[in-house]
């Protein structure tokens, strides 16, 4: 049966892609005008078209002193997936456990509350001392930045489980396992999914920062290396690539995850942290 609800308007029709596309065209036009009017020297403000050409040559591996872009993308994605993956493998169960037993784990929560507001970039010097530059440092930084949003959102999700649902489960004599899999996990999913989305974004941003500071490959390295060669067009092409990958993941991984779960159930996603 087709379901519709005023709160969840259908997002079909040409408006779905036309409006964002028009906004993009308008922004690019402004940029083009600024570049053509030479508001800044061309080597600092290349035109969009130049950036596109640079991107193509980067992608083909024709740019001087640069590896093919795809290999850097692949390296960055690997780092991101391993760091983010490890983080959520630990953060989600930990958040779940601590949310389920808040009294017993209270003492653990305060160090977490203390560590959470420390910007991950502040860990970079310490990371350098511990692991030196290289993949271990990058992994540690990516892991750390992905850990907190996933942890705290899952924790909140479990704390926010309905007391009435607990009562319903008790009336029917639900076993702990049934409660866990059929009530607690899906019930906290809006929060957990928001946590994963935020963790992904945070770790992607932090990965690029870590690559600028600690790596000799990856997208962060590409833009920093281009900067040192005064290739503003390459820097911009790199930034565009970083943005596109972030956007595509949001759009095709997390939106898709939501559309088969909470959107299908008619639940809005939790807006936290």
């Amino acid at each position, binding site marked *: 049966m087709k379901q519709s609800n005023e709160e969840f308007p259908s997002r079909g029709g040409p408006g779905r892609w036309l409006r964002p596309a028009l906004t993009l065209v308008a922004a690019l036009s402004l940029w083009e005008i600024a570049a053509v009017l030479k508001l800044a020297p061309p080597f600092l403000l290349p035109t969009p078209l130049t950036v596109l050409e640079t991107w193509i040559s980067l992608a083909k591996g024709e740019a001087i002193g640069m590896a093919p872009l795809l290999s850097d993308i692949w390296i960055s994605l690997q780092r991101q997936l391993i760091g983010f993956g490890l983080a959520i493998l630990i953060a989600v169960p930990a958040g779940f456990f601590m949310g389920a037993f808040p009294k017993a784990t209270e003492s653990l929560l305060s160090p977490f509350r203390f560590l959470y507001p420390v910007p991950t970039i502040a860990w970079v010097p310490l990371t350098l001392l511990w692991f030196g530059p290289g993949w271990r440092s990058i992994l540690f930084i990516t892991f750390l930045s992905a850990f907190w949003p996933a942890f705290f959102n899952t924790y909140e999700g479990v704390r926010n489980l309905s007391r009435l649902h607990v*009562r319903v489960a008790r009336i029917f004599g639900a076993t702990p396992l049934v409660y866990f899999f059929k009530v607690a996990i899906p019930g906290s999913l809006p929060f957990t999914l928001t946590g994963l989305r935020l963790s992904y974004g945070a770790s992607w941003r932090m990965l690029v920062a870590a690559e600028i500071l600690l790596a000799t490959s990856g997208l962060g390295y590409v833009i920093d290396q281009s900067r040192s060669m005064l290739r503003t067009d390459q820097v911009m092409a790199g930034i565009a690539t970083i943005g596109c990958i972030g956007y595509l993941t949001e759009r095709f991984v997390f939106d898709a995850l939501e559309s088969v779960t909470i959107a299908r159930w008619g639940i809005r996603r939790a807006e936290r942290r």
Partner: protein
Amino acid sequence: MMPWKVSPSPVGEYDVPKDDEQVTEARVKVDGVTKVFTSTTNGRRVEALQEVSLHVETGEFVCLLGPSGCGKSTLLNILAGFERPTKGEVLVSGHRVSGPGPDRGYVFQEPALFDWMSVWGNVKFGLVCNPDTRKRFPDPDKQVQQCIELVGLKGFEHTFPNFLSGGMKQRVAIARALAPDPDMLLMDEPFGALDAQTRYLMQGALLEIWERTRKTIVFVTHSIEEAVFLADRVVVMTARPGKIKWIDRIQVCRPRDLSDMSLMETRARLFELIGTEMKETEA
């Protein structure tokens, strides 16, 4: 001369079984139940219920009526097994209540449905929760279908709760409570959050379900009209500490017309009783 046809009985008359047969007939026996809550912040003791005794017969529809804070929900929670009485005991189907169980279906004021399960999944939940019910219902799907049809939601089996109206959600909650074939239904202001129109429809639907299943129902409400429209007996409770102030047996045939003379009189009487009770709390 009494101006009303149905003579009201003083408190206690129903609580004393007249003969042995009635003892075995009673589905619910509440005997001398007192409930004292101790505040965790300042240690103050609040007596929510004081020496409440009440028998409910099998198949009977009883409404607990009273001003807010009179302990009617506390009594329902004790029947459900969510709360333990400080003094006294509660027997349901001859067994002492020591905790919640599938023999006592419960409908909350909020539907409390699982948003992530379809109507079907929600109703089925109580049948697949533990090994005992699974043994009792080897073919749960048939039972689920019957319960969904009973509450008039055929065709909505695969809809998720957030796409249903408030009344339909409450129908699902009733079907879910009925699914494991409980001995009785406990309902805590189940229609309190619905608009007047839907509320009226739901009252009719509930009576139809009750007439078809003949489940014992204990129904908490603060609406006099609702109690008079639904119940075999209306139990009026006093403000804190909650005691039974009055029991009215309503013998008017269903479907009832609230403009019926005797029902008007019952309403007026209950209104006065509750009015005095509320004045006392304010004083």
